[in-house]
């Protein structure tokens, strides 16, 4: 069963009504990994450089397939882009971003690679800044635990890193 999501006026029920009654242009994005479809205003969708190029090249008339991005990540991305298109107050946007990015490492990772793939600079900058802030002030062991990374350093690298960390702990 195909899922159809309308990101926009909740009173509208069908695609035809959207096309007839609105003077805005709408696009349908379909995540090919899990077949979720998203109807979204073009002005919001073109925050993605990839989609913007497709629209400008005239390839965006029907459903736009989006590989490598999962449905839930796409939903979050559209929510972000919509807010950033509608709102211009920097303070409001900052508060929104802080709340929006209050996610676990797995969700942040999906958001980050998707924003990178779709070339949404504003979102990518926000996510990488958030990750950098998560890392600061943590030891390498704590970083590994949070991000579920295995230590694959060689014996020589381990000794070198122990010396470096021994030195940084000196005050």
């Amino acid at each position, binding site marked *: 069963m195909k899922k159809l999501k309308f990101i926009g006026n909740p009173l509208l029920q069908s695609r035809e009504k959207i096309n007839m009654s609105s003077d805005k242009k709408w696009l349908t994005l379909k995540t090919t990994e899990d077949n979720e479809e998203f109807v979204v205003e073009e002005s919001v969708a073109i925050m993605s450089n990839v989609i913007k190029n497709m629209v400008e090249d005239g390839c965006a008339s029907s459903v736009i397939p989006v590989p490598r991005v999962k449905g839930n990540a796409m939903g979050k991305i559209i929510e972000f882009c919509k807010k950033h298109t509608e709102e211009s107050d920097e303070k409001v946007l900052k508060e929104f971003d802080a709340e929006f990015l209050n996610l676990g*490492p797995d969700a942040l*990772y999906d958001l*980050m*690679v998707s924003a*990178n793939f779709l070339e949404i600079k504003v979102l*990518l900058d926000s996510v*990488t*800044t958030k*990750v*950098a802030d998560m*890392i*600061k*002030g*943590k*030891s*390498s062991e704590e*970083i*590994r635990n949070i*991000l*579920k*990374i*295995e*230590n*694959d*350093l*060689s*014996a*020589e*690298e*381990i*000794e*070198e*890193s*122990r*010396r*470096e*960390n*021994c*030195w*940084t*702990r*000196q*005050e």
Partner: protein
Amino acid sequence: MSLKFLVREWRELRDAIRRKNRGKGKHWRNRARSHIAPDLAPSEPIEQGKWADMPPELLLDIIQRVEESEKSWPARNAVVACASVCKSWRDVTKEIVRTPEECGRLTFPISLKQPGPRDAPIQCFIRRDRASSTFCLYGSLAPSEDGNDKLLLAAKKIRKPTSTEFVISLVADNFSRSSNTYIGRLRSNFMGTKFKIYDNQSSDDAAALSKSKSGRRLHSIACNYHTATISYELNTIPFSSIQEGGTAPTPMSLPNSVARTSSFLVSERKAQLARDCSSLKFPSESLVLKNKSPRWHEQLQCWCLNFKGRVTVASVKNFQLVAAVDPSDNVSEAEQERVILQFGKIGKDIFTMDYSYPISAFQAFAICLSSFDTKPACE
């Protein structure tokens, strides 16, 4: 009794003591070896999480943000932590972090052996603890109120029958030469006229200094200027490093206990006692530093050196070093005047040390330590 005879006697005494200690030293070194159980390095390929295998441009972006925002200590620990997470993170972090010459910041221990920046000095201070005969170098302008200063290097002074030695380490609580925090040592001869640095770096990077001294030392603020010569030859830094387009040796990694080369003497230079610098002969390939000549201050009616506010207490220990250059050498006047190392007192047992290209923090610290070695031959 002639001076030659005395020197020979002292040398024989020194060699005899060395032979005696060699047997003891090996045993002691083995006993002093660290017993911290090493982290086990993986023998089989590890299945990595996605954060270790993320697209390299994203990893670069994240670590770059950490590096650019955490410029000073202790926040800069974050960069070192990133380099210890896993292999991919270590590779990217090492790629991002630039040398002190390029960015004016110290990040990893190897930064201490890399030349300082060309445009402005790295400003540090040294605290002396007379009770324990230790000297600590900190990477701050001056002692902070909360005492939260970044320790860069520590040295312990050890008096021996015919020499004095300063063992230099990355940490203040371990001066064992078998530890991987051992960085090098400075040794003086009995007369206190010659100093040598023993560096645990490889033969391409090791530095040795010799100091020849004559006449009286210069005061920093109101000085009695005589034909005094205090000069240092750094025979692993080429003279060309201060010429236009020149570069100084920049080691990229410290040796570890797995691949350590033993310390050694690069070359021994006989002390040349002379009244003034012009008569001293050094090979033109090596960089020679000499103390900067003070200028006559007409209003104050004294000879002055401008320490730019970084030295506030008059002391015989205060000095500025510039490159010793012949008029025929291709070195600009600005470069000739540029202070490469400045050292001076700001309080009881507190001294500032500002160093810049082409010497490293380690070399600068060693030169400053040599001024703490008071001997009968010195004032």
